[in-house]
């Protein structure tokens, strides 16, 4: 395994470097080197011991593919000529197969994991059968899901393709109006981006001004979106210097709470704060919104907004 860079310790007395031993094993000694080496090998036990170890090392190097081109040629021509060496190479290959694929395993664990792995290999017929059954069950379950639970499928699709946050409206320079008359309101359904049509929710928005009481027939309205996950965006007009956070409550006309939460005005949203309500929470009818904010540690009502869902 190791390259020929250094002699075996304690065995240098015989005076033959490891490199020469390796050349002897590869049949590569010169005619002048050979007789002295052979004679010494027969009478010197230390040299014989070094040759034995070098022989194993060469077998290992061969099995691990670590020989040069010349050495590879010599090993088949001059080294692998005895049954004893064939056996050594066979063991070297076994060592390579056993250890080289499982580096740095602790004692006993390599064999254990090998056994465990062989039990769980896909080549075992029982696992092949089990795998086929699992695949069939998954396919059957997926088909059932698509047929019976389209809503779940739609939710999954929404999770897989992240929803795009709608771009906040451009800031407006208008201040908070002083008149109490309800302005003309237009419901302006946002156009859906073409590439999001299959997954992005529809957003229907309406601008609402604060009023002291329900404006009656002049109440701004929105059309209820068809999809449960579609959004009604209620754009509440606030004073420009009201930074929030806001506490918002959505109530039916009868005063029943539907939804409440905290809102933060987008920095570039000017005198408006968006209150997004999932369409499934809304039904046809009149609603009111109560907006409050924090003022020097006390809650202050900032306005009421009325709208109608058709």
């Amino acid at each position, binding site marked *: 395994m190791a390259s020929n860079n250094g002699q*075996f310790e304690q065995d240098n007395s015989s005076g033959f470097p490891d490199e020469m031993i390796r050349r002897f094993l590869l049949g590569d000694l010169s005619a002048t080197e050979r007789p002295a080496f052979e004679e010494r090998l027969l009478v010197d036990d230390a040299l014989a011991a070094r040759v034995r170890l070098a022989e194993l*090392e060469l077998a290992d190097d061969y099995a691990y593919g670590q020989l040069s081109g010349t050495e590879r040629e010599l090993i088949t021509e001059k080294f692998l000529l005895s049954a004893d060496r064939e056996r050594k190479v*066979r063991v070297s290959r076994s060592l*390579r197969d056993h250890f080289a694929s499982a580096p740095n395993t602790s*004692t006993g664990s390599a064999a254990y994991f090998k056994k465990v792995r062989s039990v769980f290999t896909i080549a075992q017929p029982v696992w092949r059968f089990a795998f086929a059954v699992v695949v069939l069950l998954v396919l059957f379950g997926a088909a059932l899901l698509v047929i019976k639970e389209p809503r779940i499928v739609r939710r999954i699709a929404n999770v897989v393709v992240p929803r795009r946050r709608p771009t906040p409206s451009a800031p407006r320079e208008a201040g908070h109006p002083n008149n109490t008359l309800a302005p003309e309101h237009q419901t302006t359904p946002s156009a859906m981006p073409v590439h999001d049509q299959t997954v992005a929710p529809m957003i229907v928005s309406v601008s609402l001004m604060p009023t002291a009481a329900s404006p009656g027939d002049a109440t701004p309205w929105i059309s209820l979106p068809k999809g449960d996950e579609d959004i009604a965006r209620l754009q509440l007009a606030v004073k420009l210097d009201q930074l929030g956070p806001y506490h918002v409550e959505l109530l039916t006309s009868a005063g029943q709470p539907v939804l409440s939460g905290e809102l933060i005005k987008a920095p570039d949203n000017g005198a408006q704060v968006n209150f997004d309500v999932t369409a499934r929470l809304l039904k046809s009818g009149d609603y009111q919104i109560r907006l409050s904010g924090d003022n020097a540690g006390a809650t202050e009502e900032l306005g009421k907004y009325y709208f109608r869902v058709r």
Partner: protein
Amino acid sequence: MTPARKLHTLQQEEFDRLLTWLDPDAARAGLNYEEIRWRLIAILTSRGCRAPEELADETIDRVARRVADIRDTYLGDKALYFLGVMNNVHHEYLKRPEMPRLPDCDDDVDAKEQTHACLEKCLDHLAPNSRKLIERYYAADKQAKIDLRKRIAVEFGIGINTLRLRALRIREKLQTCIEQCLEIETF
């Protein structure tokens, strides 16, 4: 030596005489015999001989037959006597027509599996430190091994050459253990 003598197979008496000549102690004589045989095979293989075991055995047979004649007169290192005889045997081998080279064949799957099973058994017989060392020593290949072995040497508080020597000695034990295990599995 007559051709008839050449064909003569080694008799038990001649073999015993050889062992006694190598060492009066039977156990040490057996070890000497194995050691000389292995060294002869190594030399013959290095010379490119395609039947090293066969020629080594032929060398030993010839020495065994000569022991009765030389045991009282030969003064040098006994192993060197084998070398002289082996040179003759090898010289004769070179005059023979070259043997066709058998095609290389990969190990069959059974042999691989048996070797692998024996390796696992033999690893279990190693002392925990030896096993840890050998697992880490053989874990990486190519460039990664150099860095890894430096780290192992530091971890074990030894030099890189000492690490190499230790690992190869453990490897040698594994080889012996695996070969014994494979013999048991075969029979």
